């Protein structure tokens, strides 16, 4: 009776009701967050997936004299000329000059069409110039228009013609930038953390440094951009718009993140391990190198990857150091003008043509995929390297 009387006890029932209510609140919060996430992903993917294929037209190219003279418009029939991307024809004269054997021959191939036709066929725009529409319909009926995978999106640089614009240059720029960020921030960050955590004594100086590092992690990223502009570009003369300028700036920004996560990883190593090593006659460096670092390495690497993932998505400071430039070709070295993925997305998002909106969404999809893979790699690495001691 004493144990079973809760059903009728109003006080107990109140307590159980409160618990149920709280569970419900917590669950709805999770569901709401999940719903937002799903809506966000669905929206981006539905807007962006169409950039991964494009409309192509079957065109016959005649490498005749007029093409060689530079009149590339003469290479195709009038009808094709109205629909095919201008960017594809522009290169033909040079091709003939570079390869005289082509002269007098003709070739049939599938070429990308103008952006507005592509958008019309994907259903993103309702109207098309009447004459153009007639051509498109005729070609469509003849089976000379079709969708094909848009590999050029991954290899091309930016272009004023949306059908030719791609993320290739931006991806190369991002890789350069992340490389420099890693080289700058990882050794300095890990060394700083080791010093502060394992060597430095706890006094006002180290406490001040610690507080300031924590503050630095919370500084708005645009401030780092200003710093990069003032110090690296204006003072040290690093070329503007270069991956070097961007990498150094982002490296500064990533530094506190790496320091903080490394310190956390070092602090997680149980003290008895250190004491045991000291008692065996290890010097402090031997304690760190042989006992603390091996255990904390997964944590350090995870923190570094997460810091880099954040660096990868950073845009604001890069605008200030000029990595927002219009870049058609991938940078050849770390000092040549470059752009990065998020900056490329930002550029496209500001373009008036609907075709660029599609590109921007596709760029976001790529960016998110890379970021999620990096985070997954961090989780994987942690699982893989972390041995239970």
């Amino acid at each position, binding site marked *: 009776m004493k144990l079973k009387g809760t059903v009728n006890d109003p006080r107990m029932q109140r307590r159980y009701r409160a618990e149920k209510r709280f569970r419900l609140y917590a669950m709805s919060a999770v569901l709401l967050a999940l719903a937002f996430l799903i809506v966000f992903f669905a929206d981006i993917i539905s807007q962006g997936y169409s950039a991964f294929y494009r409309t192509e037209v079957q065109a016959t190219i005649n490498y005749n004299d007029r093409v060689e003279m530079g009149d590339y418009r003469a290479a195709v029939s009038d009808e094709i000329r109205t629909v095919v991307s201008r960017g594809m024809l522009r290169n033909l004269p040079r091709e003939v000059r570079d390869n005289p054997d082509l002269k007098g021959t003709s070739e049939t191939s599938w070429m990308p069409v103008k952006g507005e036709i592509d958008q019309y066929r994907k259903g993103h725009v309702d109207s098309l110039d009447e004459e153009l529409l007639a051509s498109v319909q005729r070609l469509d009926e003849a089976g000379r228009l079709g969708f094909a995978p848009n590999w050029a999106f991954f290899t091309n640089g930016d272009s004023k013609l949306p059908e030719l614009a791609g993320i290739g240059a931006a991806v190369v720029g991002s890789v350069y930038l992340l490389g420099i960020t890693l080289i700058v921030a990882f050794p300095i960050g890990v060394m700083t953390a080791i010093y502060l955590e394992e060597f430095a004594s706890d006094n006002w100086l180290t406490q001040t440094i610690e507080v300031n590092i924590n503050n630095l992690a919370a500084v708005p990223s645009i401030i780092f951009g200003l710093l990069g502009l003032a110090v690296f570009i204006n003072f040290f003369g690093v070329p503007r718009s270069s991956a070097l300028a961007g990498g150094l700036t982002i490296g500064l920004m990533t530094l506190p993140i790496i320091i903080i996560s490394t310190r956390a990883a070092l602090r997680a190593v149980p003290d008895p391990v250190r*004491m045991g090593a000291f008692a*065996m*006659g290890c010097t402090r460096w031997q304690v760190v190198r042989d006992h603390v670092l091996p255990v904390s390495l997964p944590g350090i690497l995870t923190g570094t990857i997460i810091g880099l993932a954040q660096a990868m998505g950073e845009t604001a400071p890069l605008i200030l150091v000029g990595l927002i430039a219009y870049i058609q070709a991938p940078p050849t070295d770390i000092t040549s003008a470059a752009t990065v993925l998020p900056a490329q997305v930002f550029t496209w998002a500001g373009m008036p043509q609907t075709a660029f909106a599609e590109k921007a969404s596709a760029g976001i999809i790529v960016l998110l995929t890379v970021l999620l893979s990096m985070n997954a790699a961090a989780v994987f690495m942690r699982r893989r390297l972390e041995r*239970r001691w």
Partner: protein
Amino acid sequence: MTIKGESGMYRGDAAEYAGNVALGNHQASDETVETNPAAEAAQASKLRVQDLSLWYGDTQALFDVNLDIPEREVTALIGPSGCGKSSFLRCINRMNDLVPNVTIRGDISLDAESIYDPSVDVVQLRSHVGMVFQKPNPFPKSVYENIAYAPRLHGLVSSRAELDDLVEKSLKRAGLWREVSDRLDAPGTALSGGQQQRLCIARAIAVDPDVILMDEPASALDPLATATIEELIDELKAHYTIVIVTHNLQQAARVSGYTAFFHMGYVIEYNDTTTLFTTPYEQKTEDYITGRYG
């Protein structure tokens, strides 16, 4: 002597306590030390502690401790929690150096050589004075590496074969060889608690120390593992000088030849274990060992 209400009183009584710390022939008085250290060493006093005081910041934790710890013997340090016995133990291998704000006065000499002398290399000292901790703390490495690490570090071996021999010898001496010989590559932490503690002991003896300090080495173990450790300690005293801190009075009585009773930072009484446990001089010692407090 009764427990005084003010702890400050003990400072004044320190001299009196020092007088009580007489142990057989090992007189702890300053004169003996200064006049005839060689004779003392001949009497096999491994560690000599002279007027050792220790402060954590402003709080004094040890008051003028004087002890002569005999060679190849087990000396137990007993006393209630916070009495300073662990602090004292950590003075012997200078682990207290790692604690910020610690002040130490007085001296400890190992084989008549001061360990607090400015010229002493702490790293060298610790290779002569091994330590086993309360909670087994094998390195996050394999069983083999746990033993091999320190000898390699101190350059005690010149070849892989020699190292293999040393690992085997150390594990045998710690009574662990039979249990782990087929899994030397397994992580040290994969062993049971008692095995881990014996691994830590094997690790400590691998560098062939003079002294092994044990800080409640069996308090985290079950009775069976405790018995194994105690047997091991008994065997080890043939080779090493062992100083063991324990809360377990029966354990002190079982394993040690000499016992020091610490109370609130003072050594109240130090004598051979049988005498201390059967006919203690001090009322406080008697109260403690009969379970009246502590």
